[in-house]
């Protein structure tokens, strides 16, 4: 019996030892590979038309070929990328929404590419470059942006004689007015599972969730102006003046399609992307955009989403990868490829010029609006500098849980934010960061 156990045990250990020997290759020691050899890059992104963008680049030169892989959206890719890079494998490039970049940095996934992309800095609005310049390094190249704006059903507003709100007070009054027109109709929804939405509105009111000075973090999720925003939406939800449906869910799409949802404060991607076309195609063309309602006259707006792309630390060709990103994110040809293939609202100034010159496709929600481009450019020029922390994921998932609880049990949003704040600060401290 003992003999059999020893044999089994040694066979198992041997098998295990052999598998660990056959591990992945170590990254090349020479980052600046010879400019003669052909370079193949992989780009992980969930953008449906990303391969078209890559193909334009591949056609424009023959040294580098970029291939796109879709491993899942948002958090799915976040998980897979972290694990792949830790295993020593993974792509050369990855799409990264701005709020995840610091997390990628501390996970050792994003490479500092400041030496390759310095010239690109001048092509961007400082608020946008601030999203990729983290500490002393640059960890990504901005591709598109999503400043927050207000999108509404122009046809229904006209039908019911409603005025587009310019302040949050007007918004609240309008919400109450809409409820009296039709018991099934709502002015808007508060997307209860989107923390970035709330953080954006909080930043507009003057309370940025995260800020950093000299290596010390300051977390203001609760307290200050954030509480003002919390109380505002708390009141609207509790008085049944707004819904709490998350966008891109069945409930939301059903209401949108049946005209029960009149408007939405959201990132510009809702207007420039395919959300309306996919969710309620019959309403395409009936929407219009306007600047977000404000608290004070000259409030700047924050971003909600928008993505950069990073070069991974396991890439064997960081220079070529950074060159592709510079082309796509800051040069006219690249930004044109991005806009024509995907309709994304570009992050760079050359890109904004290109965007303004291309008419909106008929699949975009507000394509019939005549001053769409003017309003969007105005909104994009009025943005705040915001900062995200290395544990933004934890802040977001805690927020969603706490707000969900507050909505279902009727407790205050302020308490939900306090709990989120406590959890985020505790996590930052236990990771070893300095928090004020």
């Amino acid at each position: 019996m003992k003999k059999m156990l020893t044999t089994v045990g040694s066979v198992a250990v041997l098998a295990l030892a052999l598998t660990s020997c056959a591990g992945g290759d170590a990254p090349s020691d020479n980052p600046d590979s010879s400019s003669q050899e052909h370079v193949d890059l992989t780009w992980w992104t969930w953008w449906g038309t990303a391969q078209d963008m890559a193909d334009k680049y591949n056609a424009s030169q023959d040294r580098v070929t970029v291939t796109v892989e879709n491993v899942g959206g948002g958090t799915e890719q976040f998980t897979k990328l972290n694990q792949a890079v830790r295993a020593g494998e993974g792509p050369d490039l990855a799409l990264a929404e701005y709020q995840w970049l610091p997390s990628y940095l501390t996970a050792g996934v994003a490479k500092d590419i400041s030496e390759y992309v310095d010239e690109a800095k001048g092509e961007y609005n400082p608020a946008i470059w601030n999203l990729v310049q983290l500490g002393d390094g640059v960890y990504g190249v901005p591709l598109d942006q999503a400043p927050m704006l207000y999108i509404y059903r122009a046809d229904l507003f006209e039908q019911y004689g409603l005025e587009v709100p310019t302040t949050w007070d007007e918004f609240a009054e309008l919400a109450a007015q809409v409820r009296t027109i039709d018991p099934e109709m709502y002015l808007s929804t508060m997307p209860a599972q989107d923390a970035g939405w709330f953080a954006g509105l909080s930043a507009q009111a003057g309370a940025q969730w995260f800020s950093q000075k000299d290596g010390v973090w300051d977390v203001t999720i609760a307290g200050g102006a954030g509480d003002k925003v919390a109380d505002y939406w708390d009141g609207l939800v509790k008085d049944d003046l707004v819904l709490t449906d998350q966008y891109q869910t069945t409930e939301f799409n059903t209401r949108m399609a049946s005209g029960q949802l009149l408007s939405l404060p959201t990132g510009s991607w809702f207007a420039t992307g395919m959300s309306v076309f996919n969710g309620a195609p019959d309403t395409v063309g009936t929407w219009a955009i306007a600047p977000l309602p404000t608290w004070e006259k000259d409030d700047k707006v924050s971003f909600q989403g928008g993505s950069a792309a990073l070069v991974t630390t396991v890439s064997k060709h960081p220079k070529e990868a950074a060159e592709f990103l510079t082309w796509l994110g800051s040069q006219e040809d690249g930004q044109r490829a991005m806009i024509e293939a995907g309709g994304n609202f570009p992050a760079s100034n050359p890109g904004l010029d290109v965007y303004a010159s291309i008419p909106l496709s008929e699949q975009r929600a507000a394509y019939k609006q005549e001053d769409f481009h003017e309003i969007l450019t105005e909104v994009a020029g009025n943005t705040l500098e915001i900062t995200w922390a290395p544990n933004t994921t934890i802040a977001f998932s805690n927020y969603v849980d706490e707000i969900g609880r507050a909505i279902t049990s009727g407790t205050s949003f302020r308490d939900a934010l306090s709990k989120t704040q406590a959890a985020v600060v505790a996590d930052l401290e236990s990771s070893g960061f300095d928090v004020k």
Partner: protein
Amino acid sequence: MSVLTDEKLPAAAVAPPRAERRRPSRRPRAPYAFVLPAALLFLAFYLIPLGYAIYLSFRGAKVSGGGGYGTREETWVGLENYANVLTDPELLASLGRLLQYGLITVPITLGGALLIALLLDAPRARFVTASRTAIFAPYAVPGIIASIMWGFLFLPSTSPLNAILKSFGLPTLNLLDSSWVIGSLANIAIWGALGFNMIILYTALRAVPMEIYDSARVDGCSEWQIAWRIKIPLIAPSLVLTSLFSLIATLQVYSEPTTLRPLTSAITSTFFPLMKVYRDAFTNDQINAAAAMAVVITVGTLVASLGLLRLVQGKTNGDER
């Protein structure tokens, strides 16, 4: 014993000790060889990952160096992860919800399975095969698909139930809000598991010899008494088996609440313990805290399972005495 056998005994008893020492080498090796592949797989895909998870649970990712954006590196942290897990108020809350869910799911699943198995085994039962297949069919539906289908049946805007209520002018129900959601989740689990457990119990009932029932009827037992006093005690081992399966499945509930999460705010990402493990490991990229929690859940499941078996064995022994 006959005299002949007694005469043979001394010869056997006097067998030389040398034969005894040779016996171990003559023990058959074939059974061990058959078990070897399964044992290797068990070692590779169960014991080694379990050991690795325990190892991970004693480590943590800390930022090295100053500055606001240091890189996190894995270091030894001792029992810090366990301390965090056990003092987390969320753990207690999710266990509370799990208890509510379990108290609804397990008794109804097992009770229902037993009842239907007994009914199908009754002498004058009709349409037995058709009923069996129909009740077992839900088990064949993959958990995620079942959850999505039920999700649409519960969701207020697509629910046929609400359509019916509306047509009668009654107020609509939201079966996914906080007062109903645990019941709705239990519903999905019961729907899927009842058939499976029913088949196990029915098979056990079929294996009972008919003579026992005949003699019971001769003694004047009614069908109800036969069921209660004869059938149920005879299939006790199968009942223990199904109870154990149900207990473990309840402690590990994950796919139904996760699939329904996008449809309702009532289900948080830490609604049940296993969901918290997933969230920590993958959404929050904190694999060490998740490993610690997973180990805690495993130990808890082990204790609960052993406790159940101990309890049942105690009862069985008591009956025999």
